[in-house]
């Protein structure tokens, strides 16, 4: 691996300035579980590493109002083991506990996962079930990016040059909402991840979100399929129901799958149907 210089800023503004100054030659570094792998493999040349972990407070996992605020330096382990996450955002804790292996979770961060924008990501798909935002800071101050707009292509985010993600803000699910996330695959990263959120009032679905990760180039919602769930009675939404089957078909039809080592487009579309059905059934149960 080629040599690099380590920078240890003490504020996001300083980090941002360092990035702007060095341009392409500099990269933010959190856990390094992606970045250093890529650098070791010679895929990502980088002469300056800007450590986000030296910025005070970046590792916080806290509540702000009702929202969960996860600092950009918080590791997967810190997130899944935080009592407030386990109690108030149990699904986030559950999914975070099953990202990668224990060693990667002890070092890797949620922010790093999202900012790397590797298509096979669990949190990228999960967070689409929530109203969630990335908080970023750059030369022109702080802004928020809806999680749905954060990743724009494989390995590409909406962050402008010099912008640093400082936190992820996750609003609680609305009252009456139930959610599930399922992942599947035989490789280290998921072949598919599907999330389902159903808000039920008086036994009827009044809001639905379905998210799909790892199959499309960027994790996304499945709006056409979601629309079909509105007005359905929750108690009917089991794995055998025809209504759910219809939603699953719509989801599969919408999935822009790509061929890769995880499987063919055709198979992945099929999996979308299977897991959308299972996720809905689990959320409704």
């Amino acid at each position, binding site marked *: 691996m080629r040599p690099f210089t380590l920078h240890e800023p003490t504020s996001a503004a300083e980090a941002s300035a360092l990035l702007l100054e060095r341009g392409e030659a500099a990269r933010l570094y959190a856990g390094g579980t992606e970045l250093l792998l890529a650098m070791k493999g010679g895929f990502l040349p980088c002469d300056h590493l800007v450590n986000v972990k030296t910025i005070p407070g970046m590792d916080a996992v806290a509540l702000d109002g009702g929202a969960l605020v996860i600092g950009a330096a918080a590791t997967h382990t810190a997130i899944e083991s935080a009592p407030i996450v386990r109690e108030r955002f149990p699904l986030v804790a559950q999914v975070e506990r099953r990202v990668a292996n224990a060693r990667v979770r002890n070092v890797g961060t949620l922010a790093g996962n999202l900012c790397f924008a590797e298509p096979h990501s669990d949190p990228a798909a999960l967070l689409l079930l929530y109203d969630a935002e990335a908080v970023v800071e750059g030369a022109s101050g702080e802004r928020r990016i809806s999680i749905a707009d954060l990743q724009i292509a494989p390995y590409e985010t909406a962050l402008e040059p010099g912008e640093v993600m400082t936190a992820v803000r996750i609003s609680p699910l609305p009252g009456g909402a139930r959610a599930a996330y399922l992942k599947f695959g035989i490789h280290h990263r998921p072949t598919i991840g599907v999330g389902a959120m159903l808000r039920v009032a008086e036994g009827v679905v009044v809001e639905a979100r379905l998210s799909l990760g790892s199959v499309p180039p960027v994790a996304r919602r499945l709006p056409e399929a979601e629309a079909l769930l509105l007005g359905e009675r929750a108690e009917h939404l089991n794995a055998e129901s025809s209504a759910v089957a219809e939603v699953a078909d719509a989801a599969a039809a919408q999935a822009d799958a790509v061929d890769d*080592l995880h499987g063919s487009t055709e198979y992945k579309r099929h999996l979308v149907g299977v897991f959308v059905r299972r996720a809905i059934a689990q959320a409704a149960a």
Partner: protein
Amino acid sequence: MSARAFSTVGQAVPRVDAEEKTSGRAKYTTDLALPGMAYAKLALSPLPHARIVSIDASRARALPGVYAVLTAAELTGMETHYGSDRKDRPIVAMGKVRFEGEPIAAVAAVDLAKAEEAVELIEAEYEELPPVIGLEAALAGESEPVQETNVCHRYEVAWGDAAGAMAACDHVFEDTFTFPMVYHYAMEPHAVIADYQADRLSVWSSAQHPFLVRAELARVFRKRLDQVRVVVPYVGGGYGSKSYTKIEPLAAALSRLAGRPVRLALSVEEAMKTVRRHATRATIRTGVQADGTFVARECRVELDTGAYTDNGVRVTERAADRLPGPYRFEHLRSEAVGLFTNTTPAGSFRSIGGPQGAWACESHTDNIAHALGIDPLELRLKNLVRPGEELLRGRRRLEADLAAPLAEVARGFGWHDYEPVSTAPHLKRGVGMACAVANAGASPISGAFVRLHADGSATVHVGTTEIGQGSRSALAQIAAEELRLPLSSVRVIASDTDAVPYDRSTGASRSTTLAGLAVHDAAADARAQMEDAAARYFETFAEQVALAEGSASFEGESISYGALIGQVFGGAGGEIVGRSAITPDHPSGKLAEDPVFWEVSMGFAEVEVDTETGRVRVLRYTSVADPGKAINPAQVEGQDEGAAMQGVGHTLFEEMRYEEGQLMNPNLIDYRVPTFGDLPDEFHTVLLERGDGPGPYGAKGVGEGGIVAVAPAVANALFNATGARIRDLPLTPERVWRALRETNDA
């Protein structure tokens, strides 16, 4: 052998390397360093097939901190090629590259970072050739062949008139099956430290066959055998990947050029591009009578042996030997052809040709059973070779009974009254079995010395390498048993061609049987000398003295070994040396025939398949191993369980995937091997101990058998559960899903 009870043989005592290996102190090749040692890095061909127009290493050589850059131009005053059967492998590519990842140059530098930097500066120009990828392309031979021809080796076993006999059979069945290229993933990638000096070449290597490496190095560098020393520290797994000679000549040539010791340690990616298992396509035709009796079999296997011969000749032969399976045939023809392609060279991998053959044979057996409406167990019992019969004509007769244990383990597994439990509509369960027996390719050439020291402790010198299989422990147990010493008084030293007698190789499940016999005989020789000494001391006959627990006794008097040795040499020093040399003419008469033993494989699987995703889980797996006599039962189980788990890998996930000659998954993220999560809920090994092996106490080899039956047992279970017959491995979820869809459509 007397009826004396064993003191350590047959017991699951902790391994003698436990202390070192559980404290982090065990030393492997990369844990060693020599003064002034340089670090090496390889420059690899990015292309699968090309003529080398030029290699310019001048910028790399000019980099401060670089000691030497080796290219084909520097291979002067020495042999340039090596290989176990054919010397077709250049030390670095010469004239042509034949697979992506073939070394074209190597750098020795002050540290690894510098060596890596220098490799980046090496410029090579190529003229691309169309790559020969896959068996079809190799057979078609429409573009420039990989070697002089694409055919590496042809081989056939035959008797009777298989083709003619088919016509007279009630039924003829035919199936074709493929097996993928797979990677050993020994957790320690190949590593060598070479120290070349004018009159002496010393090499520390993670080698399974140090004496074959020594001979190869002596030939390449035109030295006498005594001038070459190969030492093998602990080895982090082999499974065949470190057999014969791999990167030792390259490291030694680089050391010669650099004028200092060189360390070459491969990465996983480089190890994947060093050796792999042969991919195969096998077709089997069987002529069967209406009652299920097998009459005739014709089979053909094509093997993808990659860019160089490596062990391709032997693997090709063994594949043809093993493909027909453990059954009797009046008429047989089994042919094999090994083909060169522009991919990683294929060599030995735990049971050469075995898993590929059993995958085809045992899947085919279940197809026949299904077509004839006969229980797969019954069909096997009917056709298995019987003890005392020849499986392959003209070879050693099968000593072991296969049918009785197969039937018995089937009973224990619940074969006859199996009822699948269903926990959800999309989950289906089923059971399957497979059985095989392999002619062990073990050559009976080994020697040992046992030195009994003046304090009554003993050192065993034997050429087997400890690659994890527990050879040092089993050999120490045998020595302790024969010397009548406590196990803690016996040390087996590491393999070092300067210090231990010749042993052909560590592989083919041969160590406990053949090196074990060498140690047994050497220890018995030392014991006989002690008995004589004791007889002289007690003034009686040797038959009258008793040796036990490190002492000799006679009529209530006893003397320790140490004191007795003092008596022999008239002082405090001296030692008794016992020695042995094992050859096919061993006085037991058991090593004269080929093979020295037959290695048995049997496996029973229960699987659960998610019919919606195609994901297969192995719920229960029972494996049968036949050690004859288990010197250390826990280690035999461990060998068998490890082999079975490795089999789960090629059954469910493992496959080296090439696209246009580029390896697409050259790392452990994309090449998936089994993890703790893949452990079956119930996982057992049944040991057969009938004392019928040619080794010490009736032992015979194990360690390869466990891998052989897994894939067909699992696929047969899947067939039992769903009716889907899959003919290609691995059984990835997608492949299973497709097969289920076709089955349901049909």
